[in-house]
């Protein structure tokens, strides 16, 4: 049976934009934006439930970028210069890490709406993969990059374990950097080693399943390596990786999350074509479990577009179950 879920931050509503803008310009209270984010979170969680999503993800309305809780809450990390978030007109602030970082828990909580999420093991939360965080940060205080990625993975794993104890069912580690490097032709053996080292530390979290979700790049040439990593699920961006390459492999024992719906374009995919692609993967590659997902969060195209992609996920899931 094929499942389905959204994979990250959801597009902001116009009401949330207005509340934030008013607060920014001193014409409204920050509390109004906080309340609107909570209201929108409740709405998106309900929409995911209504659409029959197998995991319900926090829409991350309190995040401006993936590393924000680290830069604002973790001792030894500060926000550095702004950078484009890969090839998007969206920015992040490059973490300035002075390690080794101490292990602490609960630092993502103020950014999440944990109490709004289901407590039955179907809630999913997103954390950065240690490798991507290392590659997009400036770090000092470590003897080498292996030590750095190990320490980051320990920090992330400690937080993942804390979230698992709150009733979360799945932790998704966002891993765009490895496939972007692959696509740019700059991937090295060291990169693969660092990715693996990070996953060895945080790939297993008691009480939850984990997913390494790659996006913004072509995973094709490194799929065999990615399959070998110690995580329960591998996410592949189907808007960057060709189906031909995905079908070349056998995923026995590994869950696969296929991002066949392009969250970065308002074009709505043909549901029948998606059904055919999913069936081909299910029939020929033998994954332990197959998930249909968006390739990334829908934050890049806004609330309305996000709901349209969610509805498309619902329709395809339903067609697959007929």
């Amino acid at each position, binding site marked *: 049976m094929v499942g389905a879920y959204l994979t990250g931050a959801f597009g902001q509503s116009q009401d949330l934009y207005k509340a934030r803008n008013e607060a920014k310009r001193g014409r409204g209270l920050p509390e109004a934006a906080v309340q609107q984010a909570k209201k929108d979170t409740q709405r998106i969680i309900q929409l995911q439930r209504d659409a029959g999503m197998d995991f319900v993800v926090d829409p991350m309305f309190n995040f401006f970028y993936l590393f924000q809780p680290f830069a604002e809450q973790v001792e030894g990390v500060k926000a550095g210069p702004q950078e484009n978030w890969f090839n998007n007109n969206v920015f992040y602030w490059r973490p300035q890490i002075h390690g080794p970082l101490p292990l602490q828990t609960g630092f993502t909580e103020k950014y999440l709406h944990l109490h709004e999420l289901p407590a039955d093991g179907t809630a999913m939360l997103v954390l950065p993969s240690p490798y991507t965080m290392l590659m997009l940060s400036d770090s000092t205080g470590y003897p080498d990059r292996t030590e750095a990625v190990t320490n980051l993975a320990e920090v992330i794993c400690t937080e993942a374990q804390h979230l698992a104890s709150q009733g979360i069912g799945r932790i998704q580690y966002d891993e765009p950097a490895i496939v972007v490097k692959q696509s740019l032709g700059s991937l090295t053996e060291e990169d693969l080693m660092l990715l693996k080292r990070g996953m060895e530390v945080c790939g297993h979290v008691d009480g939850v399943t984990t997913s390494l979700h790659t996006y913004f790049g072509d995973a094709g040439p490194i799929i065999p390596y990615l399959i070998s990593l110690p995580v329960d699920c591998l996410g592949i961006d189907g808007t960057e990786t060709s189906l031909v390459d995905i079908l070349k492999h056998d995923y026995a024992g590994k869950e696969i999350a296929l991002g066949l719906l392009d969250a970065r374009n308002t*074009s709505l995919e043909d549901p029948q074509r998606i059904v055919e692609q999913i069936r081909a993967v299910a029939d020929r590659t033998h994954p332990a479990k197959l998930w249909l997902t968006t390739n990334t969060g829908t934050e890049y195209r806004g609330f309305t577009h996000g709901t349209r992609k969610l509805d498309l996920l619902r329709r395809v899931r339903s067609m697959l179950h007929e």
Partner: protein
Amino acid sequence: MSKLFPTYEVGSLPKLNARVRAVRGQPVTDEDIKEVRSLAKRFSVEESEVVEILERQRQKKGKLTSEEETALADFNALLYLRLQEGMGFDVVYDGEARRAEMYQHVATRVSGFEKSPEMIRSRGPDSWRMAVCVDTPVLQEGSLADLVIREFEFVRKHAVRPIKIPIDDPYMIAVMSDNRYYLESLRPEYGDDPRQLRYEAKRAFTLALARRVIRPQVEAVVERRAAWIQLDIPAATLDIKHIPILVEGVNAVVEGIKDVKLSLHLCYPRRVSLTEEKGYELLFPALLNLNPQVNHLSLELANADQYEDDLAIFAQYRDQRQFELGVGVMDITLEQQQRKRMETPEIVKNRILRAATTLGDDRLVYVAPDCGLRQLQLDRCLKLYETMIEGAELARRG
């Protein structure tokens, strides 16, 4: 230009507070009017008509008439022109006083574009209204007057110094828009190769924008004897594999255009590129294929302050292609404003000389802020201009 280290502004200045409030139908404050009077006096611009409008708007709420809006826009444009001339800029424009915002200024005048339902978050809480391309993009009939002609003719009529008009580059519009139309059109052809599909869809989109949206603007101002046109490309290095599309788009805009100086403004080079190259290195060798008439680049450099590293690539390729460079010497980011930090004239002087040394030719170096100043407070912009002009003068003295 015969003068050493000529100076210019890259783009925008913040609109006058008084004008913004009046246009929004909000009460204008005494402070706003005082600012208008003070600037008008300092830069010798007649202000009595606009002050009368603003005085009327001081107590009441409500919309201005279109004549009143035009009078305020004309005043704002003339004031910024005189401000740049009065402060000693060698090449001037109007601070984009008539443009709401660079992307929207064009995107709202394109047939084939729809507005996204919501503002899309970009930088922290900052957001922008994305356009969705749903058909072949074409400039709306009759839109050239509001886009470029009126403002250009106004500046040309009033300017004492040489002028440079900024116009959006097609690649920038393509990168910031949702490319639904070309993705769907080309899916049957490239559907099995998603990366090639994205490349070809962006290429087709960029070239359509170049030919049907941007080039008509360029032709309109060239026809009206524009001497220098700057194409703005803030997102040049966003998609490293797509940089050849940027070059092809520029070339499609300028092909066959004669008797005008053409430049590109580039900002935000990728410093975390995940490749061996970073910053402006990422643009090479693609930039070598630019139409030879595009011989000037204005670059954001001050916010990194790595002039030797960032400019080395231009020196490396000098034998193949020699560009004049508008060197960004003033960091215009909001972070600097919040920290109340600004360069000194001495720092500016050193940056100019470092750039000249790295490039190996003083005559290639022009001086500019990193980017437009729209987000900053106006008094900070004035201070920033003073510092830059003084620093350039110090550099000329050596």
